[in-house]
């Protein structure tokens, strides 16, 4: 394992009874990389991600995230990562500010720290008028931006995003990716799953999972060359169809 690898996965497998959800996958992700983790619904992306963030135990194999083994040091891993789940994961019945205070608090930030960060975040997102309104009353796009910022509160080295832009309008998606790039430029490693192939083009490298296995892994440019097509959309379709 090289020093720069933030995620190192070796033969990772997860079985639910007889069903193999994740089948012997291996890859690594470097520091500051934007890594796209693609695949059809049910291909095993979310299951694989859950093993990497330490809330699902692998059946076989090994993974190291932020320098810690997910099997033996899951809680150390958790201190160093951020996670934004597919399901919206802030509290709808708390205000933006209260959500920030709560999540900051359980990551162990000091109250002075929390105050400063929430101020900075509200400025950055331009949420002055909304800071005291309930998260449940915000439009989805805003919610996702807030959720992303909350997941970044404790300065994680890696952030895991599970379909962060699902159901969001194109403008907000664009803004969301600008936020992702900003963090990547600061050296944060981004691990993102998506169904939007235009978003796949924004990634440094992309892996495509089909039926629990990683069938392709390279830069978008190389993948397009390899499959002799001119968009990631076609790469995806070709790959998914070939396997079937």
């Amino acid at each position, binding site marked *: 394992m090289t020093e720069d690898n933030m995620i190192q996965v070796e033969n990772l497998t997860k079985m639910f009874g007889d069903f193999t959800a994740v089948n012997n996958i291996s890859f690594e992700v470097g520091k500051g990389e934007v890594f796209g983790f693609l695949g059809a619904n049910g291909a095993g992306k979310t299951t694989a991600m859950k093993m990497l963030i*330490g809330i699902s135990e692998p059946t076989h194999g090994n993974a190291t995230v932020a320098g810690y083994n997910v099997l033996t040091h899951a*809680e150390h891993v958790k201190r160093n990562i951020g996670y934004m789940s597919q*399901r*919206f994961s802030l509290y709808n019945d708390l205000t933006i500010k209260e959500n920030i205070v709560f999540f900051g608090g359980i990551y162990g930030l000091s109250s002075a720290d929390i105050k400063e960060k929430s101020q900075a975040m509200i400025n950055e997102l331009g949420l002055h008028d909304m800071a005291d309104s309930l998260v449940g009353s915000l439009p989805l796009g805003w919610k996702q931006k807030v959720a992303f910022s909350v997941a970044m509160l404790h300065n994680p080295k890696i952030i895991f995003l599970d379909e962060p832009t699902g159901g969001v309008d194109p403008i907000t998606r664009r803004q969301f990716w600008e936020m992702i790039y900003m963090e990547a430029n600061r050296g944060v490693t981004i691990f993102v799953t998506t169904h939007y192939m235009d978003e796949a083009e924004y990634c440094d490298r992309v892996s495509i999972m089909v039926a629990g296995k990683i069938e392709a892994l390279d830069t978008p440019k190389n993948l397009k060359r390899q499959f002799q097509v001119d968009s990631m959309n076609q790469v995806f379709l070709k790959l998914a169809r070939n396997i079937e």
Partner: protein
Amino acid sequence: MNIIRYIIQKEFKQIFRNKAMLPIIFVLPLIQLIILSNAATFEVKNIKFAFVDNDKTSLSRELVEKFEASTYFNVVSQFPSAKQAGMAMLEGDVDVILEIPSHFERQLLKNEKADLSVIINAIDGAAAGVENVYINQIVQQFNKKALVELSLFNRSGNQPMNIETIPSFWYNETLNYKTFMVPGILVLLVTMITLFLSGMNIVREKEIGTLEQINVTPIKKHQFIIGKLFPFLVLGMVLLTVGLIISKLLFHIPIVGSLGLMYLYTTIYILVILGMGLFISNFTDTQQQAMFIAWFFMVIFILMSGLFTPIESMPQWAQLLTEFNPIRYYVEVMRMVMLKGAGLSDIYPQVLKTLVFAIVMNALAVMSYKKVS
């Protein structure tokens, strides 16, 4: 410690923000307390009484008058025959039929035995038993008086002997059912609210997905659980306090024992219930499932708590089961401390057992709570 504080803060905010839940938590239980305490009584009153007088003498009329004078019986009608009276009972118009045989007065005057026939509608067995006791009391009083009068009349000179028992009811001198029921019903309310709220709470976070987010943080299991359960402990205590105030002001229930002891025991007790709620929520995925399981235990615990039926009259195996029923101990303790003024040494066995339950239940709950699946 700080982390726990943040969780507690968040839980309270959510509880007080939920405008639909707040009245459910505070107002409904108190309405229940008021309604149940007035309604859940074992006293049998307004018994519909009918009679068949085949004797039609002054003595038989005197007996009927005794029933008329009683506050428990409403004399609804007189029937010419037992058969017609039986029909009325079938219709549900009559609870009790007293049939006075012909030659009733003559037999008594001759110092012979006279049999009265009493028919009681025993669909509600407990009520029938009580009615039987009332009837016997009235007949015995009548009997005694009649004997005295008759013996004077006969001038036989022999005064009949009578042994009378004079009961005195300790700790609830007036046999007020409210005194007996209110502490028990208060127990139920505190238990239901804390069990349902704690059982539902974590499952709810599972349902909306926020629990996954919590599990991705480096938070420790005990921090999360303490933070989650503490607000409900406070809520249970507030409920107990309001309930006690109502018991005192509205029902004039005596509070003989130490309040401190009651709160101490309640704290341990609520820990048992919260551990149970958490345990349930660990093994369920939806609030609906959690609700059903909580209800299942609740019903068994209530019916086997000794609140409505005395534990002494249960079969042996059932008595053994009640040993594991926390509500049983709470009912015992509340009645003992409130009505008898029991001290710590008197409720020591209950305290000890409840403490063991609290430790076991919460250990199970913490162990079964998994951050990793």
